[in-house]
């Protein structure tokens, strides 16, 4: 292992990590918003939007991000719809992630016991109050592990951003590899960089899940 090579290129990786993290985060946030919207459209049975949401979710979950990006970045401009590489990255990740987040929210909602909904109604809450104070908090807590799994999944998926000529971690490594030939060092740093980004996410996920469990969500039955 050539440590001087590693030391002299650390900052390249920091730059790449910043791109990965920044656009990963944009994608995650937009995915959460889009996923929530789709889930709400289905939950409240909003006509048209609900069918659109179902169609979109199926489409996004059953196609690879790489293919989605090619279509966005190389296909659409040919019919006059042009986005920058960065915009394509965020749109692509959101398109993919929104569907996964919507499914996570939905399974959380489905896990809320029907008896809980009735109990809320029986103390005279309006439907809106029932959703806000009784249903959503429980659904969200159940959805948290899946939501965090999606965050990690989406950040990993950013590794194909190099096809958009973005200098993310993967592209930084690939550039260094082709120019310097120090494959082992280059890949070692790549692995380390992803670990440094994803380990904290995983630790936070575990902490949040544990807190929710201790707060009483762990045992939802016969409460």
């Amino acid at each position, binding site marked *: 292992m050539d440590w001087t090579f590693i030391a002299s290129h650390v900052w390249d990786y920091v730059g790449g990590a910043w791109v990965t993290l920044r656009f990963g985060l944009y994608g995650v946030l937009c995915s959460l918003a889009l996923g929530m919207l789709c889930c709400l459209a289905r939950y409240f049975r909003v006509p048209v939007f609900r069918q659109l949401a179902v169609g979109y979710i*199926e*489409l996004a*979950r*059953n*196609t*690879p991000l*790489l*293919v*989605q990006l*090619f*279509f966005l970045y*190389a*296909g*659409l*401009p*040919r*019919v006059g719809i042009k986005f920058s590489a960065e915009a394509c990255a965020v749109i692509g990740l959101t398109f993919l992630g929104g569907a996964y987040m919507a499914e996570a929210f939905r399974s959380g909602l489905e896990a809320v016991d029907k008896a809980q909904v009735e109990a809320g109604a029986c103390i005279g809450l309006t439907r809106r109050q029932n959703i806000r104070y009784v249903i959503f908090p429980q659904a969200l807590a159940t959805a948290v592990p899946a939501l965090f799994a999606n965050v*990690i999944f989406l950040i*990993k*998926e*950013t*590794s*194909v951003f*190099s*096809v958009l000529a973005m200098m993310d971690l*993967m592209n930084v*490594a*690939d550039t260094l*590899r082709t120019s310097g030939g120090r*494959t*082992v060092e280059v*890949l070692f740093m*790549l*692995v380390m960089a*992803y*670990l440094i980004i*994803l*380990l904290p996410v*995983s630790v936070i996920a575990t902490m949040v899940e544990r807190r929710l469990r201790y707060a009483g969500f762990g045992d939802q039955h016969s409460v």
Partner: protein
Amino acid sequence: MQDLGISILFKGINFQRLMGGLWVTLRLALITIGLSCLFGLLFGMLMLSKRKIAKVFCRMWLEIVRFMPQLVLLYIVYFGFARLFGWDLDGETSAVIVFTFWGTAEMGDLIRGALTSIPLHQTESAAALGLTKGQVYLYVLIPQTLRRLLPQAINLSTRIIKTTALVKMINVTEVLKVGQQIIGQFYRQPDAAFWVYFVIFLLYFLVCWPFSLLAKQLEKRWA
């Protein structure tokens, strides 16, 4: 007026070429799914073993595939192994190694989850009826395990099919690459790229969607 770009897909053997490209990734996916089921069974049983070292080993393996983008793993095997061990693997072999490495751990975890999800009293009450250990497995444990496992395993298979698209990044001539070649030939047709990538997008959807529907159906029936 010019032809619509979609017509180029039906010129000569272009469509057949695209399907040929798709088959490259599908074949890789099928091999991977088969191997993952086989090794996943061993992996799952290893995870349930009482030996600490086996558990730690499995945990590490699982964490690696959970944390590392599949593309990074592909790079390590395709470019890194040549440097580290002098193995000059071609793209398809590297892909099978990496995706099986990943699929084995994920499938193994699903199998472990399905096996442990069956309540102990099911085994006990079956044993109390005087069934032999083999009969307990045959009539009680395996049917229940399969019901839980099958939908999840099918979902994992769809993910594997989608993920094999990544072989484009290690120079395997698959459907996106074929698409690029076709677009190159028809560079005078401005919207060729749009239609080619759109059709590839659709093809992936048509391959993956039936699996997703099947998984959902089974889940509903066996829930």
